[in-house]
């Protein structure tokens, strides 16, 4: 039986391993591990060149899983990512050629450049863990994680992800630019060769599956669950929000809190875990009202505002 301390040890080794490639991205790496352990998918909103691909590759290499990258463009077809059946003259039959989606860690770069049709073909894979080609359903090998990226600045010629698809992403995160010292360290590390070539697996996909099972045993006290639900419900009534987080958001926050607690070696969830995860898990699920968007309000600011308002309910002092 896999225990919580094994999850914590896994987290430590992964952080160390990925940290040998990524400089100063501990928070993002930790969130990525949370998503991996929860069986969720990640949306990275950031400018090009901050290490998104490296992060995904380092993750895949660290778990010994397969990795593929999809560069999304407007002419990308669903069959380009799921795979297609081609006619084999020697066999005299159609043979299925799997697409890049058949890997365990998939980086869908600039997902908002793909057409809605191609975007939605990712839905089945992300939601159900399977793809259907020519009426045949193929189960995807677990663990399966899609890390999709989009540029938050440039929107020309893009197809913004609809709310239903955004809701499919377990959490969203941003890597951000490194500081001066971090960027200098990156330069020296990459002076001779890229450290990604030296990244060795610290675990196996089978072990990750066991760890995914282990985090579901993490205890969530009733008041923490209630706080979590109140927080999600508050997103639905916030004056600046048109569409709040769905019950899938509650489920995601619940599971993410369990994963984070386990990564920190605890077999119980704290309200602090919920607070720490609220922005990554909930912000991208909110649709703000038009006037709020015009005023430049960010969904993350709304979630942070709610974190300051919703009572944690730790103790009744009166």
């Amino acid at each position, binding site marked *: 039986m896999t225990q919580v301390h094994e999850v914590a040890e896994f987290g430590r080794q992964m952080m160390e391993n990925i940290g040998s490639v990524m400089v100063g991205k501990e928070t993002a790496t930790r969130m990525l591990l949370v998503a991996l352990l929860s069986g969720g998918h990640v949306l990275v909103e950031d400018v090009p060149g901050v290490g998104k691909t490296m992060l995904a590759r380092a993750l895949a290499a660290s778990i010994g899983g397969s990795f593929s990258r999809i560069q999304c463009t407007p002419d990308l077809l669903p069959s380009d990512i799921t795979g297609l059946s081609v006619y084999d003259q020697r066999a005299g039959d159609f043979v299925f050629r799997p697409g890049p989606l058949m890997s365990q860690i998939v980086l869908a770069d600039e997902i908002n450049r793909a057409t809605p049709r191609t975007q939605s073909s990712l839905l089945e894979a992300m939601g*159900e863990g399977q793809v259907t080609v020519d009426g045949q359903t193929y189960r995807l090998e677990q663990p399966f994680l899609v890390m999709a990226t989009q540029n938050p600045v440039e929107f020309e010629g893009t197809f913004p992800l609809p709310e239903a698809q955004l809701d499919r992403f377990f959490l969203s995160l941003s890597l951000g630019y490194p500081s001066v010292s971090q960027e200098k360290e990156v330069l020296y590390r990459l002076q001779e060769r890229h450290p990604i070539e030296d990244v060795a697996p610290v675990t196996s996909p089978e072990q990750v599956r066991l760890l995914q099972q282990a985090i579901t045993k993490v205890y969530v006290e009733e*008041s923490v669950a209630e706080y979590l639900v109140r927080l999600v419900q508050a997103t639905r009534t916030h004056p600046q929000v048109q569409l709040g987080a769905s*019950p899938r958001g509650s489920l995601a926050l619940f599971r993410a809190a369990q994963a984070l607690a386990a990564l920190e070696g605890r*077999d119980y969830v704290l309200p602090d875990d919920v607070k720490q995860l609220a922005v990554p898990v909930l912000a991208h699920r909110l649709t703000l009202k038009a006037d709020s968007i015009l005023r430049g309000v960010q969904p993350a600011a709304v979630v942070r505002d709610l974190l300051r308002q919703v009572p*944690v309910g*730790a103790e009744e*002092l009166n």
Partner: protein
Amino acid sequence: MSVKGYLPALAGIFSASVLLLGALYAGLFAPALAVPPWLWAFLLGSAVESAYFAAYLLSPRTPWTVRLLELGFWLVPLYFLAGRSWRFLWLGGLTFLSWLLGRDYGAQLRDMERVADLLGDQAASTVSWEYEALESQGQSPAVEFFWRRLAGFGLLMAVLASAAHRRGLVEGSHLAWQLKLLGGIALCAGLTLQGGAYLFRLQMLWSCAKAEPDPALPRVWMRNLGLILLALLVLVYLAPVDYSPLTAETIGRLVMGLLQRGWEMPVPQERSAGERPQFPQEEATYGEPQGLDVAGLVFLIISFLLLAIFTAIILAVVGFILVELTKAEVERLRGLPKLAAAAYAALRKALAELSALLRRVKLQLPQARRTPGPLGRDQGAAPPGPGARMHLPERGIRALLRRIAREAGKKGLAFLPSQTPWEYGKLLQRRLGSQEDLIAEFFQGYQAVRYGARGLQGAAEQRVLAAGREILKKIEALEGEEQSDSGTRGG
């Protein structure tokens, strides 16, 4: 543990017992329709077999020959046992009906299992989506199917029983004990089926959502259901049915008498069965009420209050049953069931508040006794000093945090509702400076007690308590420093 394995059996028992009840009552009304004892086996067997077949094997592709063979398996022997006479039509019809009912239940269980196929795993994992999606497809929600049949058959049996009792057909009949037995079986099987179907549906949703609830939940669920059934059986078979004098008829007569004759109260007369109620003579003339006084009005108000209390109690009992059965899905109840659940919630809240009030009074009484002084009540209500602290009934780690928060609150270090305990701990760390390790130890211990499944025991608990007491002292000392500072400033 999935309850699906038991539900077809329950559905079969319920279908067979309801049909047998109907057949026995029909036999009372028309002796030619009496059923032989061996028919029990046929009805039960056909219903259980049909329910299991539909739940596990039946599919749209099942050939009609197989279905006809299945039905023939029950009807052919019955044809010979019925003596190849017209009675076969009646007995065979009952068996066919029982078989159909079992089939209906089994098919419903199979459909409930296919919710993920219909809606997709993601949608099925969201209860409200599943509800709305099923409704939009013109289907009734899964559990309503069971509820409607339970209520419908219950009503039908009540009408038959009422008609049979009114005609005096049951008293003295050799079928009386059979009717009672079948009524009990139908009630138990029907309600267990209802509760089991609800649990089964939740298990389906949990499996779609890949949620892993407490494995003991089905056992607890069934135990609670058993308790409710036991209570119901006691109510049905042992409790008096006639709640006289609080019948609508008696109250109506009393009120009418009061309005007509003022203070003089009519005494309810004993009357034999079948006799019509005798209203006072004055009822015939609806003139001005004579001598309607305050006492009459008071009695009227009391009567209404009693009626309201009685209704509230019944609602609360029904609400308790509903809340126990529906648990977290109680918010989805509508209409009268929602009112019953609200009545139960209000009663529970009132009792909890009363209990909290009594506890507070109990806590304050010894303090008031310990600190009698010239300040009287104010001094008694104030929290005792550090020496007396650990003699309070509340001396756990959580109580200690509350004390720390109250004391620190007085110094401007309030524990805000939106703060987590650890955030508050960090605030104290910043303020108390040199006590970082102490504060970390106490708050980590507190978190284990408050949010952990196992809490703290023995030496670890004592260490955390000691750390907490130390922090409390530091906070109280902080007050001294502030006072002396202000004193210095004032001087």
